[in-house]
């Protein structure tokens, strides 16, 4: 990744400008970006847009198929709740968990990796040994255990999933930091008397942005997967809140008689994950034209 202030040439394009251009040429990524924006708007504006509240039951109505005339575009579930409103509400929780938990892992991972990489030596060895140790832990099982033991609390979900995902981030950031450490602009900052933390915050982290952005876009769908997996097992958010995983679970139980209960939440979940993955892939190719080959 191109780092420092080498973009002084008159009329030159910055890294981000050319990356943006490359991203715009990537049709799958551009389409995904717009679709995702649409999803986010729908999910945020859901409560105002939908004619029905997602918790409002109507037992006399029961499970009805999707119809435009009836006012329930995605149909209703066995309790007469509007599936459209529920899908949007579930999507809101899933996206929220995805963003917040990724943010948690981002903060821990960037801090850990940058400090380890910049300090080097024994500090680095110790910090990374800790990461190695945690790597071997069966984390998913611990998260399930946490959910079982402490009850289903949304804050805990954020923290648990976030704490599980920071290891990769720390490793990537450390590697990048080590390659940055001996660059001239860092040396210049040191000579001007900047302290370690200042250098990390002002000079190292901004130069990690490219890698971090790509990694974040690819982490969000992974986190959403974990959350929906937990919800699917009945260990995620608690009623009356709902999430796409929980909706898929309920839908799967009645898929033979009321397939719309499964299809719409499943489409929403898979669609969002597709979008994030395509955008992440696109960003990676755009920011580093050479590394179309960087694997997963």
């Amino acid at each position: 990744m191109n780092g420092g202030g080498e973009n002084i040439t008159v009329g030159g394009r910055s890294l981000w400008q050319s990356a943006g251009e490359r991203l715009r040429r990537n049709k799958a990524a551009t389409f995904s970006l717009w679709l995702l924006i649409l999803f986010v708007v729908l999910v945020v504006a859901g409560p105002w847009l939908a004619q029905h509240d997602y918790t409002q039951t109507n037992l006399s109505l029961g499970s009805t198929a999707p119809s435009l005339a009836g006012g329930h575009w995605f149909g209703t579930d066995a309790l007469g709740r509007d599936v459209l409103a529920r899908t949007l509400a579930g999507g809101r929780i899933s996206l929220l968990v995805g963003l917040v938990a990724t943010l948690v892992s981002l903060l821990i991972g960037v801090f850990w990796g940058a400090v380890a990489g910049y300090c080097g030596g024994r500090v680095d060895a110790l910090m990374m040994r800790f990461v190695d140790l945690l790597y071997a832990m069966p984390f998913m099982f611990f998260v399930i255990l946490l959910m079982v033991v402490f009850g289903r609390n949304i804050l805990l979900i954020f923290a648990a999933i976030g704490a599980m995902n920071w290891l990769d981030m720390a490793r990537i950031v450390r590697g990048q930091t080590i390659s940055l450490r001996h660059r001239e602009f860092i040396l210049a900052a040191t000579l001007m008397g900047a302290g370690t933390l200042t250098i990390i915050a002002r000079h190292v982290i901004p130069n990690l942005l490219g890698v971090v952005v790509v990694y974040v876009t690819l982490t969000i769908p992974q986190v959403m997967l974990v959350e929906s997996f937990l919800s699917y097992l009945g260990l995620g958010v608690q009623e009356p809140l709902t999430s796409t995983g929980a909706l898929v679970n309920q839908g799967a139980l009645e898929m033979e008689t009321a397939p719309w209960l499964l299809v719409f939440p499943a489409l929403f979940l898979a669609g969002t994950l597709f979008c994030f993955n395509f955008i992440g892939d696109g960003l990676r190719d755009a920011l580093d034209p050479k590394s179309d080959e960087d694997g997963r």
Partner: protein
Amino acid sequence: MSWIEPVFTFTLKRLLSAVPTLLLVVAATFFLIRIAPGGPFDSERNLAPDIRANIERSYHLDEPLLQQFGRYLGGVARGDFGPSYHYRDRDVSDLIAESFPVSFKLGMTAFFLALLGGVTAGVLAALRRNSFRDHALMSLAMSGISIPNFVLAPLLVLLFAVHLQWLPAGGWRGLGSVVLPAFTLALPQAAYIARLTRASLLDILGSDFLRTARAKGLSRSQAVWRHAMKPTLLPVISYLGPATAALLTGSVVIEQIFQIPGLGRYFVTGALNRDYTLVMGVVIFYGSLIIFMNLLVDLLYAWLDPRTHRKQ
């Protein structure tokens, strides 16, 4: 044989370094459960205090926490995970021994399916970069990564079991019942492996040593087959550790969907029943399995990668 000694020391070193990791796994699971509110016998209402005390004494729950931990640790070291709280008169070790073979069969089938399918797809895609075949295979891989197991599974059941009636919808009887669960379990991992293989092979196709091989008169397929495959597979092999972990977690949900009497399903029911010893046993068992798999992967990697030999 000169290679035995370094392999032996390497294995020994790794086994030794696995000890603190395992201890951490055992300690974390044990104390996590103990600091939690509630207990395994809370669900039985109207329990007279002295009866309750008797039950707790019979499970050594009245001892100081550290002593209980020591007792548990000693048991685990001997492969004894204690009695199940829910399935009375059953030991957790028995439950694991009884149900793990089923999970193992499912997991192994999925593992080889993912490895074989993923590598084949990745190689086929990389050899014709940007062709229709490449795009089709990579779109498939993207779907594998983006469509969760538990979304795909009911859809496949709906299609192949309910409508076409080619395969059973669940249960564990005969070869047919392995197909759908193994496929759904393997697909995301196959997708990751396909992407890794493609990226890795593309990298190697542009390397100098392969050009040299071509210059010496090998055809493209000969050069790829003889010289590119081994280095291509290195990143795939280092992914096999995480892949195993993912397969184990995945099987928790797959076993539930397809009603397979494996260990993963015990984990879920154990968690819901607050059967703490059972849950702890499964976590520790799976944790050791993952650690063991990582050791195998490292050995395999060292064997295949000549650069690691030179260091020793």
